[in-house]
């Protein structure tokens, strides 16, 4: 990481921390918290789709599984929030494992279509299983996170910080995974599965691991959503949600570390700004997104990074060989 990157990241974290203090508008804080929750889900999708090359459309389903697990455990089983959160992550992971075991037998478009079906089935199960999930009536009265010692999460501000904490944790974990040998392994699989196998990588094992982590993170995002909004309906598992995730990811940059944050923030802020257009917002979003995919398929962050690399390599050519070690690590 370069010095500039460090400063930018520290600045952003600082801004996120002071944001509720300078903004007295509860609505903004509410929108911000929701964006953080989406970002967590998008990070989950990014590890699988961006770094391993498997575009899953089942992630709204796992988001919903996380949300409903937490909702049912706290409302119907009356569990404490924290063990319920842990248990809902485990439930999502186990279901993710079995879904992955089967769907990872397919590749590329077939994988996308297959997971789309998996996601829809999850949605249908939630929608129709009245006795467990309350069906279309939804689940009401999900409690806020329980106190940890003197820390209480009843207020909007405190909830904001809780979600921010989880977001930073997820970003840290992602950063470490991507910059490790495991991360290199996943990128090798994305690049060419055949080549990955010839250099001794067990592709199925690695893909399944990523699939499970990715669903657990989507589940975390769902569980946080449930405890924040306090009410969930089957709609959170619908196809529209997964395409929201995908839009955030594509705009920010597939397979980039800051893409999920940039994409989510941009789209959420834009769609808040364009509220006055109501559903006609989509008339703006549709064409813009199409143009972006055609001309900048690597998203905002990916395109910016490519420009940076180009600039650096032209500098490099004039300076010739022997790069300092620090710059090498960045690559």
């Amino acid at each position, binding site marked *: 990481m370069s010095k500039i990157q460090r400063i930018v990241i520290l600045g952003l974290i600082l801004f996120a921390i002071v944001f509720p203090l300078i903004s007295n508008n509860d609505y903004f804080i509410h929108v911000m918290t929701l964006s953080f929750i989406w970002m967590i889900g998008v990070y989950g999708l990014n590890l699988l789709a961006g770094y391993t090359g498997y575009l899953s459309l089942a992630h709204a389903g796992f988001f919903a599984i996380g949300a409903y697990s937490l909702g049912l455990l706290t409302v119907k089983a009356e569990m404490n929030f924290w063990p319920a959160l842990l248990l809902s992550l485990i439930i999502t992971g186990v279901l993710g494992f079995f879904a992955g075991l089967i769907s990872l037998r397919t590749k590329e478009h077939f994988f996308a279509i297959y997971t789309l079906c998996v996601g829809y089935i999850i949605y249908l199960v939630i929608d129709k299983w009245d006795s467990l999930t309350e069906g279309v009536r939804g689940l009401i009265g999900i409690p806020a996170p329980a106190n940890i010692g003197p820390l209480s999460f009843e207020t909007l501000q405190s909830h904001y910080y809780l979600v921010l904490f989880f977001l930073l944790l997820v970003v840290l*974990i992602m950063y*470490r*995974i991507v910059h*490790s*040998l*495991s*991360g*290199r*392994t996943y*990128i*090798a699989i994305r*690049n*060419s599965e*055949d*080549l990955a*196998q*010839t*250099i*001794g*990588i*067990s*592709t199925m094992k690695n893909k399944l*691991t990523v699939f499970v*982590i990715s669903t657990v993170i989507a589940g975390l995002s769902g569980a946080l959503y449930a405890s924040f909004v306090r009410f969930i309906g089957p709609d959170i598992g619908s196809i529209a949600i997964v395409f929201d995730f995908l839009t955030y990811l594509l705009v920010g940059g597939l397979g980039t570390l800051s893409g999920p944050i940039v994409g989510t923030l941009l789209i959420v802020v834009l769609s808040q700004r364009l509220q006055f257009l109501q559903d006609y917002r989509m008339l703006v979003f549709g064409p813009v997104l199409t143009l972006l995919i055609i001309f900048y398929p690597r998203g905002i962050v990916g395109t910016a990074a*490519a420009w940076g*690399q180009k600039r650096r*390599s032209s500098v*490099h050519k004039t300076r010739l*060989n022997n*790069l300092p070690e620090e*710059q*090498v690590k960045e*690559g």
Partner: protein
Amino acid sequence: MIFLETRKLTKNFGGLVAVNNVDFAIEQGKINAIIGPNGAGKSTFFNLISGFHPPSSGQVIFKGQDVTKLPANKIAQLGVARTFQTTNLFEQSTVIDNIIVGHRLRTKSNLFDAIFRTKRLRSEEALCREKAMEVIEFVDLQKVAHRPVAGLTQEEKKRTAFALALATNPEIVFLDEPAAGVNPDETEGLAALMRKMADKGVTVCLIEHKMQMIMKLADKIMVLNYGEKIAEGKPEEIQNNEAVIKAYLGGSAIA
């Protein structure tokens, strides 16, 4: 000493027999070549040995062990590396970043190590980087080590693919048309590199169409035609073999 051998290796794709009853033995430390007209089954033969396709019948024996049924990644771990006709590299990434992962199969660190940045991960990362630098030096790519693969010449890409294969610590490498699409000067360079690999003790087996290069380079040649082995031997034996001339030039050329 017989190092790797195939016994009656056969592969059918539906009604098509791509490889038919091929017995072939590879000696350690030598350069072995497989030649034959297009569609003779050479690449399929490679795919059978490296575990990409399961053979319909027959066996592959590596150092006395039957590896016929092992998947590709397990075979790689035993010390069998290969390259593809198309280099398959990650173009946006630098040469060294492409190669570092090549040594991954000799490391043990997992996700836990990744998330907690354990000592093991750090030492293994250093090891992989060291290995990458070593093989980059071996294939003589130091000058472009930190450049994205997209900007390399075809020959440099081939060398990168060699380096990636070498980073797995192989005892034998299978090279599928290593000199395809490079000019004659560069072909000589690549031939020298293959000789260097063999001298270092890495057994080489290659598929190639450039006869001049093969005849100078190979210690032993096998000729495939329509999936069957039609000849095997030293270059001079192959050059004068009637069946081979017939396969390449057609029936009337015998005279």
